[in-house]
C-alpha cells in the first residue's frame, strides 16, 4: 500500500481546468518532486491535497484511507497528517517565532504549553532559528522566515510534508540555507512532495520526479531518467532549457 495515492485528480478554477486526471503515488518516506513550467498545475496539486482548492474529480488516499474533500472532518483529518509550506507570507505576522511554531500544537492538538514549547525549541534548533525565538517575522530575512515556516509545519508531526516553491521568493544567497534545512529532513522518513525550480537540488534529494505540463503529469521517473534520458519530448524540452543556465 502506498502512503499517498492520487488517482485521476482534476481541478478547475471556473472554466479553466488546472489539473487534468493526475495520478501519482508516494511510498512512506519517499521524496517526490514536481517540476514543470509555471501554470502547469504543480502548486494547484498541492493545494488540492491540503484542501485549499476543491477537486472536481478523482481520489486521494492516505495510507489507504480515502479523503473526502467535501467533508470538513475529513479535511481536518488530512491537515492533521499533512503540512504545507508556501512560497511566502507563511508566518503569522502578529506572533513571535516561538508562538508561530507552538500555536497549532497548543490550540489544536491541546498539548501543554511547556511541552509544546520544548518541542518547538528543538525544532527551531534543527532549522537553526532557536536564538531568534522571540523575533517577529518582519525582523527576519526571507530565508529565516522560511526555516521557521518549516519548523512550524513540522510542529504538528506530519506524515506528509508539502513544499510549494519555498525558495522562489528568496534572495539567491538565502536559497541554500533553506535547501540545507529540507535536505536534512529527507532522511527522516517524512513523505515529501516538493514543488521547486531548483533543479540541482531536486535531482539530488528526490526518489522520483514528476514532470507536469498543462495540468497533466507528462512523465514520472527516477531523477536520472527525467534529467538524462527523458522519453517525452515535452520533458526533454523543459529540462534542456532549464539546465542550460
Amino acid at each position, binding site marked *: 500500500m502506498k502512503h499517498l495515492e492520487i488517482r485521476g485528480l482534476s481541478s478547475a478554477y471556473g472554466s479553466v481546468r488546472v489539473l487534468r486526471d493526475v495520478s501519482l503515488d508516494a511510498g512512506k518516506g519517499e521524496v517526490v518532486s514536481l517540476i514543470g513550467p509555471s501554470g502547469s498545475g504543480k502548486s494547484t496539486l498541492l493545494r488540492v491535497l491540503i*484542501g485549499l482548492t476543491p477537486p472536481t474529480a478523482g481520489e486521494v488516499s492516505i495510507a489507504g484511507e480515502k479523503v473526502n474533500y467535501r467533508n470538513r472532518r475529513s479535511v481536518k483529518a488530512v491537515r492533521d497528517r499533512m503540512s504545507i509550506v*508556501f512560497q511566502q*507570507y507563511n508566518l503569522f*505576522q*502578529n506572533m513571535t517565532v516561538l508562538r508561530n511554531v507552538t*500555536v*497549532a500544537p497548543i490550540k*489544536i492538538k491541546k498539548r501543554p504549553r511547556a511541552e509544546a514549547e520544548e518541542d518547538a525549541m528543538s525544532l527551531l534548533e534543527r532549522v537553526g532559528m532557536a536564538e531568534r525565538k522571540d523575533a517577529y517575522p518582519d525582523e527576519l530575512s526571507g530565508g529565516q522566515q522560511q526555516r521557521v515556516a518549516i519548523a512550524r509545519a513540522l510542529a504538528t508531526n506530519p506524515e506528509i510534508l508539502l513544499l510549494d516553491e519555498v525558495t522562489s521568493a528568496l534572495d539567491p544567497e538565502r536559497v541554500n540555507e533553506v535547501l540545507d534545512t529540507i535536505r536534512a529532513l529527507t532522511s527522516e522518513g517524512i513523505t515529501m512532495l516538493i514543488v521547486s525550480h531548483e533543479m540541482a537540488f531536486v535531482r539530488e534529494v528526490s526518489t522520483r520526479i514528476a514532470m507536469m505540463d498543462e495540468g497533466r503529469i507528462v512523465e514520472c521517473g527516477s531523477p536520472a531518467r527525467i534529467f538524462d534520458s527523458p522519453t517525452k519530448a515535452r520533458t526533454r524540452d523543459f529540462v534542456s532549457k532549464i539546465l542550460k543556465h
Partner: protein
Amino acid sequence: MLEQIAEQIPLFFGYHNVIFILQAAGRTLGMTFAGCSVGFAFGFLIAVLRQTTGPVLFLPRLLGIAYVEIFRRIPFLVILFIVLFVIEPLMPGTSLFGIATVSVCLLSTAFLSEIIRSGLESVPMQQIEGAKVLNLNGLQTLFMVILPQSWKVILPPAAAFVVMFIKDTSLASQLGVIEMTFAGEMLVNRGFSPVLGFGVVLVCYFAMSYPLSRLAIRLEKRLEAS
C-alpha cells in the same frame, strides 16, 4: 462688541452656566461614545458576516450588505427624524437624548462596518490559508490572526470617524437635545453675545476632539511599532 463681551464674561462663567455647558458637553460626548461603541460592535458583526461564504448565512449576509449600503447614504439629520417618528409612538416617553443616541448607533454601525471590513480584508490571503492548513477554526483565525493584524488599518479611520461624529451630533440640536450646539444657542437667546456664546462652544468642541485625535495617533504609533 468687545466691551460687551468683557462685561458679560463674569456672568457667563457663573456657576450655573458652567454646569449647564458641562452637561451639554457630556451629552455630546455621551451620544458620540455610547452610539459609536454600540456601532462598532454591530459594525464588527456585519463586517465579519460579510467575510463568510456559503449558503447558510446568505440571507443575514445580504441583509448586512443592504443595511450598510442604505444607512451610509442617509443624512444624519434624516435618520434622527426617522428614529424620532418611529420610536415616539412605539415607546412614548423615550428621552430625546436616547433617540439621538440610537440614531448615532444606526449611522455609525454602517460606517464603522465598512472601516472594519477594509481592515479585515487588508490581511493577506496567505495568512488566512496558513491558519486553515494548521486546522485553526474560523473564530480562532479571526481573533488570533486576522484581527490583531487589522487594527493598524482599522484604527486611524475609525478614530477619525468618531472625532467627526463629535461634531455631527450638533444636528441633534434640531431635535431639541440640549447638547453643545443647542446649549450655545440657548445662552445666546438669554442675551449673551453670540461671539462669546458660540466662541465657547467652538473651544469646547476643540477640547473634546483634540485629545481623542492625539490618543489615536499615539495608539497608531504603538501598533506600528509592534
